């Protein structure tokens, strides 16, 4: 299946060029150019305008789509399947625009030797960037094929149709795509505009197609990098320092060296790893080494109960990301509130894993990293190899939900394989490593202040957010956990904020509501008390929790209905649609209050650029214990053109449940020395016993509209909706996450 010997030294250009490929020149493509002139009335400026999606960075069509002489179609994407179903959606888009059978398309995902460089699979960008590129490339390839057929048939291109991988003429003549290209490559630069199909004619886009990866996953297939077995493969484990900043004082490797199956013990500064023939032999030897090692530890962590104050005290770079205030002192009734969110972890069920092989001076790493190109750069820097000698190939891992330890495990495999050339090395982290060493979602604090006028309109809105960075992803080797432990360590570069409009800590800090006077300040705090990075939705989770909680507080003060006050301040018609749809389907207007129960509502458009999501929950609060459970959840989502509506539903359902888990239970704990959230008992998450009775997701399809990123869109609204429902049920507003039983019980004072 995978040829480990496929030399990493072969460059991608060489791979793409293949053997004896021909270049299709534009002179062969009258139809394409003609079509653009006639159908789109494209002026020269537009033809040279920005290319759609990731075609901007990878403009050659054969970077995205290849048609072989046998008519098989290969589609390439630089994005990775993370369990979000993206492979299936990409194949749908390509099959639609190419008019070929879904099952005839072979999709190749993120691989530095084979696919375009699309950076990270992150930020709910996959459909917008890669889906858009594939859709347009497929449409343009189809038009090229029609042009080629027109020449072969000597017939006008507009008298040709495409169907099932063939170009057909009215007189019955037909040619398959494979015959048309005859093995030559469509090495053609993409055009700015494409002749996309009319959405009304779509036969596969917009349909709930079954995901291509699920059958293998439920029958024990090789579905994950954890399942990859290469000939001669050995197993490794890392002995992780027990605390941040710990230094190895002494380690007697004698006992471990003699253990069965042990092949090599690696020590490089504070980095220790062991290689063995069998996996459990590696685990056993790692445990022996962990016992044998003595570490000098020092208290580097802050006091947990002081963390929010600390984040506000640390030096910050302050930016007013919005200031529309023209009328100071507007409004008559002023309110203020402070919200808090702790460190939270990705908590992948499968600890991170990678396989690497160093052979003939070149390294191949199979990894579930979200960014194979950036990881290649980091590994090349760490090992002082030219980037061309390193190949990173994506294989699925356990769901990551952002920057977990995937890259760190990739770096481990690279370091260990580099020290043990010739045989593939598989390394998987242990549960405790994943819990204590992954980069967490940062603790954050926000302050909201608003003034209402006499009509219950927000006349002034001020909002501040304090946060660390939300991205310490490689690229730089210094961001790899293990690179920091080496004898000659790599140090992380100073963090920089992710700029608006996407933002990092300030993602979604600007409300979509029309508030007459608004000022939003982002306090970017460079110094990181704990290692942090991107957790699904970044700062949006906290900012939406804060804003949407505060809007409910304002509604209460104004005596307004929570749904009505949102509509009152919302102009965007698509936002109004999801708000109204979620409210109606929930039965908001006819809701009958019951003791111990409450309802909540929340809305956001992810990044103010992606999918629109509104949610409504009914919760039950047990007075005795403070235990909160969600009885039912209703969501409405507008993701633009819905490629796979069931995929969208799955993402929103999953986002709601994951965010409920974060918001009900999750907070990383630590003492002055060590992380104390070491497993699922010290960091509990949602279990089946606490899952809602039902969740309904209504997808508002917008055929022909751009794809809007969806994967992270439910995280923020869910947190706020939960807090709003608890406030409705108990009359008490809780502004600090998570809403644990203990916190709720304390707040309601029973």
């Amino acid at each position, binding site marked *: 299946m995978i040829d480990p010997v496929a030399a990493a030294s072969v460059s991608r250009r060489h791979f793409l060029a293949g053997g004896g490929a021909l270049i299709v020149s534009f002179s062969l493509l009258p139809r394409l150019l003609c079509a653009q002139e006639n159908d789109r009335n494209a002026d020269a400026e537009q033809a040279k305008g920005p290319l759609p999606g990731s075609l901007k960075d990878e403009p050659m069509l054969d970077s995205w789509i290849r048609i072989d002489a046998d008519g098989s179609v290969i589609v390439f994407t630089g994005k990775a399947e993370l369990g979000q179903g993206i492979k299936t959606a990409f194949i749908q888009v390509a099959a639609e625009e190419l008019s070929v059978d879904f099952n005839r398309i072979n999709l190749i995902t993120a691989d530095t030797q084979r696919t375009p460089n699309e950076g990270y699979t992150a930020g709910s960008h996959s459909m917008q960037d890669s889906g858009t590129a594939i859709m347009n490339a497929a449409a343009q390839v189809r038009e090229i094929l029609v042009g080629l057929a027109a020449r072969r048939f000597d017939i006008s291109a507009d008298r040709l149709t495409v169907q099932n991988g063939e170009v057909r003429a009215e007189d019955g003549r037909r040619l398959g795509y494979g015959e048309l290209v005859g093995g030559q490559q469509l090495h053609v630069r993409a055009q700015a505009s494409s002749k996309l199909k009319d959405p009304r004619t779509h036969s596969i886009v917009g349909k709930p197609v079954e995901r291509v*990866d699920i059958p293998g996953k439920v029958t024990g297939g090789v579905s994950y990098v954890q399942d990859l077995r290469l000939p001669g493969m050995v197993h490794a484990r890392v002995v992780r320092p027990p605390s941040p900043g710990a230094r190895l004082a002494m380690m007697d490797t004698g006992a471990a060296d003699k253990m069965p199956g042990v092949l090599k013990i690696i020590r490089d500064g504070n980095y220790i790893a062991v290689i063995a023939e069998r996996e*459990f032999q590696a685990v056993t030897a790692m445990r022996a080494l962990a016992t044998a090692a003595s570490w000098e530890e020092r208290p580097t962590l802050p006091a947990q109960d002081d963390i929010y104050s600390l984040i506000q005290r640390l030096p910050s770079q302050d930016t007013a990301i919005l200031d529309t205030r023209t009328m100071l002192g507007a409004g008559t009734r002023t309110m203020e509130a402070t919200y808090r969110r702790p460190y939270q972890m990705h908590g992948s069920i*499968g600890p991170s894993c990678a396989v690497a092989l160093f052979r003939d001076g070149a390294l191949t790493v199979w990894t579930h990293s979200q960014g194979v190109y950036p990881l290649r750069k980091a590994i090349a820097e760490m090992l002082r190899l030219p980037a061309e000698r390193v190949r990173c190939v994506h294989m699925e891992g356990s*769901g990551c939900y952002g920057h977990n330890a995937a890259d760190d495990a990739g770096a481990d495999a690279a370091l260990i394989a580099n020290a043990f050339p010739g045989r593939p090395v598989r390394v998987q982290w242990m549960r405790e490593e994943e819990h204590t060493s992954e980069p967490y979602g940062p603790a954050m604090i926000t302050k909201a202040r608003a003034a209402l006028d006499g009509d219950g309109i927000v006349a002034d809105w001020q909002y501040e957010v304090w946060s660390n960075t939300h991205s310490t992803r490689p690229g730089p080797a210094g961001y790899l956990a293990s690179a920091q432990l080496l004898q000659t360590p790599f140090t992380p570069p100073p963090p920089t904020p992710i700029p608006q409009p996407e933002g990092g800590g300030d993602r979604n800090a600007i409300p979509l509501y029309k508030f007459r006077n608004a000022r939003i300040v982002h306090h970017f705090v460079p110094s990181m008390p704990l290692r942090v990075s991107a957790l699904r939705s970044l700062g949006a989770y906290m900012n939406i929790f804060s804003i949407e909680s505060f809007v409910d507080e304002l509604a209460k003060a104004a005596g307004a209905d929570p749904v009505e006050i949102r509509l009152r301040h919302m102009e965007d018609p698509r936002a109004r649609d999801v708000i109204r749809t979620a409210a109606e389907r929930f039965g908001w207007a006819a809701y009958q209050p019951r003791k111990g129960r409450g309802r909540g509502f929340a809305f956001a458009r992810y990044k103010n650029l992606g999918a629109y999501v509104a949610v409504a929950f009914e919760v039950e609060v047990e007075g005795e214990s403070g235990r909160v459970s969600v009885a039912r959840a209703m969501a409405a989502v507008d993701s633009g053109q819905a490629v796979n509506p069931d995929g969208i539903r*799955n993402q929103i359902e999953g986002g709601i449940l994951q965010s409920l888990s974060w918001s009900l239970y999750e907070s990383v704990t630590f003492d002055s020395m060590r992380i104390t959230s070491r497993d*699922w008992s010290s960091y509990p998450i949602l279990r089946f016993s606490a899952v809602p009775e039902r969740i309904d997701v209504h997808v508002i399809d917008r055929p022909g509209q751009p794809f809007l990123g969806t994967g992270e869109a439910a995280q923020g609204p869910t947190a706020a909706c939960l807090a709003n429902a608890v406030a409705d049920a108990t009359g008490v507003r809780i502004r600090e996450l998570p809403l644990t039983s203990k916190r709720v019980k304390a707040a309601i004072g029973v």
Partner: protein
Amino acid sequence: MITLNVNGQPRQVDADPATPLLYVLRDHLELNGAKFGCGVGQCGACTVMVDGEAIFSCITPVSVLRDRQIKTIEGLGTIDNPGPLQRAFIEEQAAQCGYCIAGMIMRAQALLEKNPSASEAEIRETLSPNLCRCGTHMRILRAVGRAARAMQNTSTGNTKGSDP
């Protein structure tokens, strides 16, 4: 050498008797279904069946498994001929990353073999030791319910058990 009975086949394994079953399944027998999740019986990703009971294979040494019937997800069906639970999980699209799913299916299989008419409350209760991080819970519950109905429809007799 230890002889284990896995999915109805005797398998000779050269492993230290203290080795947890999970490592033997994955590393020696090259079966992918059971997954390493926590190694301490807290997440259920490694769940397989032994003599009809769902167990955590990550904490069960092979030394205690002689003469016992071990069943993994590979024993329920194949990609071309999936078993009722596998089929139901495909039909309900009950996976996101899917890493936890084999464990979910094996715990559900153990339940439905004993009680094909298990109620939703029983299904929830039974699956509670198994963690899912993607939030696929609703679909997993639907899939297990669907498989239960399919298994009842194809079974000839035993319909005792609680009312759904």
